């Protein structure tokens, strides 16, 4: 599935909620169902800096496709990580670099996008892009 299709699906899911509590209940649910990162990947290195809650992000690259896993000690953060991973995991590096996470404001989670939130939302996104960039470079090196 393309990234835009995935984000559209998320936007549609969230369109069902008319109050914040339902939305957060769903985020919590998503947080609880986030496929867990392997314990051995919960390293200092994978820890995203600048978050109030601890967030780990791990990336695997098979030469073509990037696979992300994540975890956090806060459930809401985990729920958001789930959305990001659903969107960006199993995509090619270039596709990840070309896309944005604007859907988060569309589904009314803008408050988590402000830099003051320090929940690692933006840092997580940045890290995802950094991985994509690094893997793209690796890919190109392999090709040349």
């Amino acid at each position, binding site marked *: 599935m393309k990234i835009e299709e995935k984000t559209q699906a998320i936007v549609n899911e969230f369109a069902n909620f008319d109050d*914040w*509590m339902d939305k*957060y*209940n769903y985020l*919590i649910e998503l947080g609880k169902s986030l496929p867990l990162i392997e314990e051995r990947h919960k390293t200092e290195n994978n820890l995203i800096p600048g978050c*109030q*809650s*601890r967030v780990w992000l791990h990336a695997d690259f098979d030469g073509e496709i990037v696979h992300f896993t994540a975890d956090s*000690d*806060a*459930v*809401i*953060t985990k729920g958001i990580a789930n959305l990001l991973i659903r969107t960006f995991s199993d995509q090619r590096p270039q596709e990840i670099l070309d896309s944005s996470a604007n859907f988060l404001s569309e589904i009314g989670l803008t408050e988590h996008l402000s830099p003051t939130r*320090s*929940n690692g939302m933006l840092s997580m996104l940045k890290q995802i892009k950094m991985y994509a960039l690094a893997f793209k470079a690796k890919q190109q090196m392999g090709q040349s």
Partner: protein
Amino acid sequence: MGNRDTVHFSTAGLADIEAIRADFPILRREVYGKPLVYFDNAATTQKPQVVIDALTGYYQTMNANVHRGVHLLSQEATSAFEKAREKLALFVNARSVREMVFTRGCTESINLVAATWGQQNLRPGDEILISALEHHSNIVPWQMLCEHSGARLIVCPLHADGSLNMEEFARLLNTHTRLVAISHISNSLGTINPVKEITRMAHKTGAKVLIDGAQALAHLVVDVQDMDCDFYTFSAHKIYGPMGIGGLYGKEELLLEMPPYQGGGEMIANVTFEHTSYNEPPFKFEAGTPNVAGALAFGVAIDYIQKLGIQNIAKRENQLLDYATQVLKSIPGVVIIGNAEHKASVISFLIDETHPYDAGTIIDHFGIAVRTGTHCTQPLMDSLGITGTIRASFAFYNTFAEIDLLAKAINKAKEMFL
């Protein structure tokens, strides 16, 4: 509910809580379509209209540089600025205005002492004694000083209830201790430290004492002569005044001996390219154009709380704290972090195993501003073995009904994270 907020107060200043709240325009605003409940007063307090008016009024009618011009505006601004200094000096009971230095705030005041008195007096082998509950502002400047001077930073531990372990304090004090730097009130736990006793003990071994009063000035009567501390530091914004201004009280004999902090205009007596002689304290420590509007508005904030009466304020805030403590304790799974016998109106807590960030996000959506995280006291959180807390901190304009709403929000959060 309204009744509960007025019934305890026959005391003139705070009898009519709605009238008091009306003094604070921001309390009329909404967040997420709900009335704002502002429980983050330990981070910064809200400003009454008179303080806001003082800021704009200064620029509208009086703006001029101070201590410099013969023209009337400059004279007016200078005398208003010095009047504000006088109010502050009186408010903390300094011996004279010469003991009251204007700074950007508590953090700058502490850095000033570290950079001047500290650099002048500390040698390898000397010790600075702080406590485990200090704000980063009362840790990092001393760490930096230790790095420069070769002195050592010693940390006095706490009891489990968040009070200072005074037996340990006595044991750690020794003839190498040159400075004791401890907060009057903990911003994370609310603990009120026995600063007078601390000062007495420290002076016996020959150490100087700096009290970080950031959290205290708005909550209790501060008398620096009675306390006998050598330095006392604070920020206006935590006492209903504006941001960007604060103060350092220092004993005159110490200020006289200390080297200047920053160089520039105002702090000099005579300048030639060969030699500069310095102005007297407090001006010696006030290089450059100061925050005049801020100082004036700080003075107005002090007038405002003196009109309410700091004792009345303390009484109301203690009642809010007692009520909140009782309400939070009655919610299963809520654990209060910091249960010292003497506490100011700061209440830190955790809800079951829920991460403070999660709980805070839900509470925020009720329109309630609480703070979550380490509250700039990361070493304290580490020593308690937690990653942070949810903190509600009350000011006199808060109400019992608002605390009831907090309880409701907590119960909702409990349900959601179950």
